[in-house]
C-alpha cells in the first residue's frame, strides 16, 4: 500500500528541506529504488549522508538513467494536477504500456515510423518515483509555455514553405523528425538522420531508448557522457568563465558551480540549431540544471529552459535519475550511417526521374 502522506512530502520546497522531503518521498513511494543491487537495509532519510570525494564535494558518479513512462508534458485532461494518486498511477501505467505495444502500423509512408513497439522502446515500465503527472513542473499546468508570436510566425512560415515545396516537387521524405521535409542534401536533414544528435543532450530528457548517462568526476570537473550519441559534457567547477559570446557550439558551453551540495550548471553559447523538445529554440537559449544526490541510487535532476525570443516564459522540469544496471557501450552512429546514403539516393533518384537535375540549395 502506498502511503498518501508521502506524496505531500514531495511537494515543492527548497534546499535541505526539499532534499530530505524528496528522500523521504523516494523511499516510501518506491522502496525498491533505494537499493537496487545494494546490500543491507535501506538507510532512513535521517541516517544517509551523501558520499563525498576527497575534496568534500558530493559524489555524483555512476551510471544513471532517465527512462520513464511519465509523459514529458501533462495530459490536458489533468489540468493543474501535479501528482498521480496511487490508483491513478496504476491505471496510467497500464494504459501507457498497452499503448506502447499496440500495432500502429499504417498503409502509408508513416508505416516504418509507427512500427516500433515495446520490443524497441526502452522507456521502462515505471513512472518517475516522484509520482508527477509530467516531467515539466513549471508552468503549473505541466505544459511548455506558448511561443512568442514572432517566433511562432517564423516557424509557421518555414513549415508552410517546406510543405509547398514538398507538395509541388519530388525529393522529400518523412525522416526522423517525423515530418515531411527535403531529403536530397544532408544539410537539410534533421540532426538525428545526420547522427549529430538523437536527443537534446542539454537538458537530459528521455528518448526512445539508450537513456543512459555516465558521470565521472574529478576534483574540478564533472563529466557527463550521454550514451547516444557519445557526447561528453565537460563541466568545470573551478570558476572558469564561459566562452566569448560569438563562439557557438551545438550543445552550448557548460560551466558549473556548487551551491551547498547541489551542482548548478549553466549552459549558453548554443548555435540554436537543435531539435526534438528544443526545435523551436534559437541562439538565445540558456539552460540551468541542478544535480543533487538525494539517496544512494537517486540523483535528483532539475532543469530550466529559458529563451526569451522563443517562449513567453522559462519552463522547468524535474527527473529523479536512477541507477542503471550494466555499463554504457559505444554508440557509433556516423561511422555506419547507411540510413543517410539510402535516404539521399532515394530522394535524388526521385528528383532525377522527375527531370529535376538542378542541385537544390
Amino acid at each position, binding site marked *: 500500500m502506498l502511503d498518501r502522506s508521502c506524496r505531500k512530502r514531495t511537494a515543492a520546497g527548497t534546499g535541505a528541506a526539499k532534499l530530505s522531503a524528496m528522500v523521504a518521498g523516494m523511499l516510501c513511494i518506491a522502496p525498491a529504488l533505494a537499493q537496487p543491487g545494494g546490500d543491507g537495509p535501506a538507510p532512513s532519510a535521517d541516517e544517509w549522508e551523501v558520499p563525498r*570525494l576527497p575534496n568534500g564535494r558530493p559524489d555524483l558518479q555512476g551510471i544513471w538513467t532517465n527512462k520513464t513512462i511519465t509523459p514529458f508534458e501533462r495530459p490536458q485532461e489533468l489540468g493543474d494536477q501535479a501528482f498521480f494518486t496511487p490508483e491513478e498511477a496504476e491505471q496510467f501505467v497500464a494504459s501507457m504500456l498497452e499503448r506502447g505495444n499496440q500495432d500502429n502500423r499504417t498503409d502509408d509512408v508513416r508505416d516504418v515510423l509507427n512500427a516500433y513497439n515495446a520490443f524497441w522502446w526502452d522507456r521502462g515500465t515505471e513512472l518517475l518515483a516522484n509520482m508527477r503527472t509530467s516531467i515539466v513542473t513549471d508552468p503549473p499546468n505541466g505544459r511548455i509555455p506558448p511561443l512568442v508570436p514572432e517566433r511562432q510566425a517564423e516557424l509557421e512560415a518555414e513549415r508552410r514553405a517546406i510543405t509547398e515545396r514538398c507538395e509541388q516537387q519530388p525529393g522529400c521524405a518523412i525522416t526522423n523528425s517525423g515530418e515531411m521535409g527535403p531529403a536530397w542534401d544532408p544539410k537539410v536533414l534533421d540532426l538525428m538522420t545526420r547522427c*549529430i544528435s538523437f536527443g537534446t543532450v542539454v537538458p537530459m530528457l528521455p528518448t526512445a531508448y539508450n537513456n543512459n548517462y555516465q558521470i565521472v568526476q574529478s576534483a574540478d570537473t564533472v563529466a557527463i557522457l550521454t550514451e547516444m550519441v557519445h557526447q561528453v559534457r565537460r563541466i568545470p567547477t573551478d570558476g572558469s568563465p564561459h566562452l566569448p559570446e560569438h563562439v557557438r557550439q551545438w550543445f552550448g558551453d557548460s560551466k558549473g558551480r556548487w551551491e551547498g551540495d547541489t551542482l548548478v550548471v549553466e549552459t549558453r553559447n548554443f548555435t540554436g540549431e537543435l531539435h526534438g523538445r528544443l526545435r523551436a529554440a534559437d541562439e538565445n537559449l540558456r539552460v540551468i540544471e541542478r544535480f543533487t544526490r538525494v539517496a544512494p541510487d537517486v540523483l535528483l535532476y532539475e532543469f530550466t529552459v529559458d529563451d526569451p525570443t522563443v517562449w513567453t516564459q522559462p519552463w522547468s522540469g524535474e527527473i529523479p535519475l536512477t541507477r542503471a544496471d550494466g555499463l554504457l557501450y559505444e554508440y557509433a552512429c556516423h561511422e555506419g550511417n547507411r540510413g543517410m546514403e539510402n535516404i539521399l539516393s532515394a530522394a535524388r533518384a526521385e528528383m532525377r526521374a522527375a527531370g529535376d537535375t538542378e542541385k537544390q540549395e
Partner: protein
Amino acid sequence: MTKQALLTAACCAASMIAGPAFGQHTATAADQPDLSGIWQAMNTANWDLEAHAAAPGPMSELGALLAIPPGPGVVVDGAIPYLPEALPQREENRENRWTADPELKCYMPGVPRANYMPYPFQIIQGTDTIMLSYQFADAVRIIHMNDPGPAPAPSWMGWSVGRWEGDTLVVDVTGQNDQTWFDRSGNYHSEELHVVERYTLETPNILMYEATITDPNVFSRPWTIRMPLYRDVAENAQVMEFNCIPFVEDVLYGDSGK
C-alpha cells in the same frame, strides 16, 4: 555497554549505513597520481609514426598550408615491423591517404591514434573509472578500473581496462574494429589489435605515454611508441566542440544517388 563497545557499535553502524555499494570510496588523490587535466601531444605522430621528411600536401593550390611537416618519429627502435605480406596494404593505404584515411571521414580514431591527434583531450580521473574525452569527433573512452570482463563487441574506440602499477596507469585495450588507421600515412591493423598503454607523470605537466602494439596478422612482433603528452596550462584552456560531421557530409555522400 562500555565506552569502547559503544564506539565500536557506532563505527560499525555507520559503515553499515554507508553501505559497501557507495560508501567506501578510495581516495584516488591520496593513493595514486591524479592524471586529470587537458593534454596534447606535440609531434607529427598523427602524420606518420615513423620518421619522415617534409612532403607536399594534397593540393598544390594550398601551398604550405597543408603540406606534410617533418618529424623524427615516435616508434621505439625506428621502424614498424610489418610482416612482409602485410606491407603492401600499408603502401596502398598511403597512396590513397587523401581519400581513404578514416580521419578524413570524421570517424572515431581508435587507440592509440586518439592520444596523438593534433587536438587536446581531457582526462577526468574518477573513483573507479577514468574518462578520456577527445576534442576530435567527440570521441570518448571509458577506462574501467574494476575489470568488467571482455569486450562485448568490436568498437571504434575499443574496450579499456586499467590498473595501477606503482605510479603508472596501465591500460589494456582490446576489441577495436579494423577500420581505423594509426596515422595519416596508412599504417593500419586488424581486429586482433591489442594495445597496452602506460601513462606516467614525469613532472606535473608532462605525462609520458607509451603504447605497445601487438597484432599477429600484421606485425612480426610487438612494437612500442613513446611520446610526452603536455598539459595545457593556459588560463582559459578547455576542450571545445569539434563535431566534424557537417564538414565531411559532401565528401561522404556526394555520390549517393548520382
